[in-house]
């Protein structure tokens, strides 16, 4: 009796739509859920089914969990009326997972429905199986599915074929029994079934292509004969997976592949053919020429000329394909260079990224400077995300394989300096790493680095951008480490101790303080004349004034380094014997640090008797 006025799904949807605010909506959902919880226990099949229907809706579109109703879903799946059953199956497909325990109950139900005379009922069961299959279910139902492969109905055969992918994935042992049956479908009289079969083979081959190599002759025949575009696409993709395993295969399919490329009007197929060619046929000049020609057509078609008739999809996919063909057909790039570069400026981020990837892959040591200049130029006007993609590309390309492409490090240090000043710069960590790395590795460029470091420290207008902070740490480190090259040390110490530095993160402040220490040591130990001694005094006073408070800084590292610094100062001021000590410390700092190889640890011999 309670259910007399049960709300249907339509009512539920209307009710939801009438809620203006999100809070109203969630209250409405909660209320609906309460009603559903009661209705779902009803014995009247219509009411139970309607409740499950509403619940499925809320589950799919409002994120409502329905795992608690799994048993009732099975009840609805078992109902005799097809329209009720269907609702149960819909709910099951979208909500059952591997851990749903009622799955044990549905094996027989599925068995029954799979063998139904009503092809739509059987199809429904297959669909459900394709989404919720567990190893147990598959094991029990494999035979039923295999029987369906021989159905007279195309509808059943195509769906049963597709389900085999799930069957093989969840229960690999079934491959032994069922593989032959799957392969038979390559000869099915209906191309949809053949297409389903090739689709399954392709998915399986993506995980492990070797076992499917022996099907090559069959697949070859299909490549020559078929006119079904979908089938051909999957076929061509499958060949791309098989070709690396058998070089002779590539030679064999070259001609039919080209024939398909010439004949078809579907750009989708042409692009897949090009992709497959880049996987295994790059040494066949005729094939590559054809592919390049087709690609040029596509690129030409993608540019309407005045930007109006541009086909953005062809632009994007075309650029990707040029990238794939690059190893053997770099001419494509030179021919379309201006188009590719202008795509860096394209309004569409997808096209921008495709263009960037292409440009980066064309980089060599001879065009590095030009490429970097182009990328930098676009970075200045690009919006934040793409700007940083550009900057990040510059950084990773130049530092690749220990800066393999960089011939002039002085130039590169300049680039790093420019990079940091780009408005949307966010690559602080990487720049810090590279500045220090280059300092360690490239002695000749340390003077440039010192100059750059000085510029960063003194020009505090750049300090606004929080991403600069790591770079400042590198700058401070460089100033301290290569102190003999630093120029006006007083100026640098002033910069390192300016009031603004206290707003920097503690880790950066700590580096600053250490740099001041190194500079002071260097300076004090080198002070020979009275004039120098005066400057040392000035420096000490400056340090006292600006860094005094840092001795009680909250961060322990900063505190410690500040204390060390002041300890050194009191040491310097206590004249007696400080000279020798200072010289000693200075020498310790003067020793060159070098980069440590990542294999160094392995080379350390473990001493006898040490158990690790």
């Amino acid at each position, binding site marked *: 009796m309670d259910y007399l006025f049960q709300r249907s*799904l*339509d009512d539920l*949807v209307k009710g939801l*739509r009438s809620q203006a605010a999100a809070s109203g909506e969630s209250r409405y959902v909660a209320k609906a859920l309460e009603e559903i919880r009661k209705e779902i226990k009803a014995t009247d099949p219509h009411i139970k089914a309607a409740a499950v*229907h509403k619940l*499925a*809706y809320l*589950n*799919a*579109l*409002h*994120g*409502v*969990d*329905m795992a608690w109703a799994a048993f009732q879903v099975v009840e609805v799946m078992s109902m005799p009326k097809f329209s009720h059953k*269907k*609702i149960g199956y*819909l709910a099951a497909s*979208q909500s059952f*997972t591997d851990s749903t325990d009622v799955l044990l109950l549905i094996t027989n139900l599925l068995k029954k429905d799979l063998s139904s005379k009503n092809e*739509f009922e059987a199809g429904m069961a*297959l*669909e459900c199986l*394709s*989404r919720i299959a567990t190893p147990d279910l598959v094991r029990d139902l494999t035979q039923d599915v295999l029987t369906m492969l021989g159905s007279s109905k195309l*509808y059943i055969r*195509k*769906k049963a074929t*597709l*389900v085999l*992918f*799930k069957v093989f994935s969840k229960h690999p042992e079934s491959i032994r029994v069922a593989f032959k049956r799957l392969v038979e479908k390559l000869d099915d009289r209906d191309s*949809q079934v053949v*297409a*389903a079969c090739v*689709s*399954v083979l*392709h*998915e399986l081959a993506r995980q492990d292509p070797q076992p499917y190599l022996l099907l090559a002759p069959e697949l070859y025949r299909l490549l020559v004969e078929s006119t079904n*575009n*979908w089938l051909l*696409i999957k076929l061509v*993709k499958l060949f791309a997976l098989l070709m690396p395993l058998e070089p002779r295969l590539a030679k064999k399919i070259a001609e039919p592949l080209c024939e398909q490329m010439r004949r078809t009007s*579907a*750009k*989708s*197929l042409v*692009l*897949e053919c090009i992709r497959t060619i880049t996987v295994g046929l790059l040494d066949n000049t005729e094939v590559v020429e054809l592919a390049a020609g087709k690609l040029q057509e596509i690129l030409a078609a993608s540019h309407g000329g005045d930007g109006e008739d*541009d086909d*953005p*999809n062809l*632009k*994007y*996919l075309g650029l990707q394909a040029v990238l794939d063909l690059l190893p053997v057909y770099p001419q494509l790039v030179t021919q379309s260079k201006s188009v590719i570069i202008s795509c860096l400026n394209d*309004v*569409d981020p*997808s*096209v921008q*990224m495709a263009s960037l990837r292409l440009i980066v892959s064309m980089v060599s040591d001879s065009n590095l400077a030009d490429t970097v200049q182009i990328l930098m130029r676009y970075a200045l006007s690009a919006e934040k995300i793409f700007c940083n993609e550009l900057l990040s590309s510059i950084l990773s390309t130049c530092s690749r394989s220990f800066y393999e492409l960089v011939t002039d490090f002085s130039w590169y240090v300049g680039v790093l300096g420019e990079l940091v000043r780009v408005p949307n710069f966010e690559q602080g960590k990487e720049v810090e790493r590279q500045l220090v790395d280059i300092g360690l590795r490239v002695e000749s460029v340390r003077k440039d680095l010192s100059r750059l470091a000085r510029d960063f420290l003194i020009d505090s207008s750049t300090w606004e951008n929080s991403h600069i902070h790591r770079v400042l740490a590198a700058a401070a480190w460089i100033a301290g480490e290569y102190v003999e090259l630093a120029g006006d040390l007083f100026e640098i110490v002033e910069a390192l101790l300016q009031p603004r530095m206290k707003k920097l993160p503690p880790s950066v402040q700590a580096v600053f303080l250490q740099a001041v220490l190194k500079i002071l040591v260097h300076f004090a130990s080198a002070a020979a004349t009275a004039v120098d001694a005066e400057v040392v005094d000035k420096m000490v006073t400056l340090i006292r004034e600006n860094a005094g408070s840092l001795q009680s800084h909250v961060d322990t590292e900063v505190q410690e380094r500040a204390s060390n610094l002041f300890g050194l100062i009191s040491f310097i001021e206590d004249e007696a014997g400080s000279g020798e000590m200072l010289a000693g410390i200075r020498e310790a700092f003067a020793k060159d640090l070098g980069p440590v190889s990542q294999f160094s640890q392995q080379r350390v011999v473990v001493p006898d008797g040490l158990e690790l």
Partner: protein
Amino acid sequence: MIDAVLVMNTQGKPRLAKFYKSLSPVKQQEIVRKVYSGLSSRAEHFCNFVEADEIFGARTKLVYKHFATLYFVFVIDSGESELGILDLIQVFVETLDSIFKNVCELDIVFNFNKVNTVLDEIVMGGQVVETNSTEIVKSVQEIFK
């Protein structure tokens, strides 16, 4: 493989959400939000492909089409052809159009079961099962006779 099919309106409200990988309802809602934010910033003349690595994993893409107030989105991995799937979206929409006579968003809102069925006739377990609109319409009409 097709990882998911989503239909959402231009305000981000999902009208159809089918996932071919097992995901909790909470995760599904999160994904719908992320997909929406990936699409809503795109203008009309942009290409129909968006790289979706951050949402669905490496080498996945959103292939989408914008019709009136709705986005139709197919999430694919590298095993699918982008242009092929774009054609498939067209098939999906044309089929809905045949079945609902000049389909609009409201038709999809009020026909949860039927719209899901149409999709099930096109994509099964993440793979394409039928690409011919006439065949699909025939089957759906039989099912709902």
